């Protein structure tokens, strides 16, 4: 039997595997949702200027909590809108796997946030938020379009830097992450991945 036949069989298997991988990707990550969350991030950064974290930690936390409380549902609504447009269900298949991969990092972030607040370690919060949100995005992004895990990795880098800089720089990095990265990747995804 010719090896060409075997090569064709291997090629067919590669095609099946690639098609399964592409068909299993969650493509309803909303670029316009990310832009809105980015705008919210910038507004939060303006409302909580760099020196606030040291001067009034309570207000700093409240502002970013509010941003998270608004950003989560906003992002979810935009994803739901994009999924509905594509006829994609958010309850099964790739969407479900995406959510399951995305959620643990956020849950860990919430737990550590309460632990650090209880221990009055406020300066650890920005790095924790950026790193664990990045971990969530990277994990979920592995099941989505390529820019998503890249954005997640950049969040982790910003978060790592955050642990080694003074508090006022941490606020700037929060703005760069939750504002800047969301805006940049939001525009990219909107333009190249259908909204």
């Amino acid at each position: 039997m010719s090896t060409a036949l075997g090569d064709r069989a291997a090629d067919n298997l590669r095609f099946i595997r690639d098609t399964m991988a592409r068909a299993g990707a969650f493509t309803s990550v909303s670029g316009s949702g990310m832009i809105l969350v980015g705008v919210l991030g910038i507004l939060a950064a303006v409302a909580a200027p760099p020196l606030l974290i040291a001067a009034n930690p309570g207000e700093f936390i409240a502002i970013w909590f509010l941003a998270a409380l608004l950003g989560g549902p906003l992002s979810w609504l935009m994803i739901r809108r994009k999924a509905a447009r594509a006829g994609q269900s958010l309850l099964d298949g790739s969407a479900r796997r995406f959510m399951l991969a995305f959620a643990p990092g956020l849950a860990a972030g919430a737990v550590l946030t309460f632990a650090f607040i209880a221990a009055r370690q406020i300066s650890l919060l920005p790095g924790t938020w950026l790193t664990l949100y990045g971990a969530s995005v990277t994990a979920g992004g592995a099941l989505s379009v390529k820019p998503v895990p890249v954005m997640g990795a950049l969040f982790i880098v910003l978060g790592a830097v955050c642990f080694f800089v003074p508090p006022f720089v941490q606020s700037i990095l929060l703005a760069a992450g939750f504002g800047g990265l969301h805006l940049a990747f939001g525009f990219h995804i909107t333009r190249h991945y259908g909204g």
Partner: protein
Amino acid sequence: MAKQSSSAAARRAERGARATPVGLRAHKGDESVAGALDKIIHERIRLGIVSALAVNERLTFNELKQLLNTSDGNVSVHARKLEDAGYLSCTKSFDGRVPKTEYKLTAAGRKALERYLSHMEALIIATRGK
């Protein structure tokens, strides 16, 4: 159950594509190994449709068209052939005023894909083992 089958199919595709020459395991003659191919799903577009549906509960006509980067006519013709063979089921409905066609892999379709994967693995092992 369906999920286990689809991940099993994905694992087999992965394993087969990386198959190394571990010796000739196919006991049948070369011709019989090559000859018993399921021609219904051997065609590329049809193989793509079946593979995509193996990892999704259901997909719409437009999703399949985008995924396989092909034309309306191609998806329509090939999906019909798979439907005629009993490998797909098709549901037509309306999303508001827009007609919506959804496809789902049947148990026979899933078995056919698994048979096809076994067949490809056997071919690779038989040819590389020589």
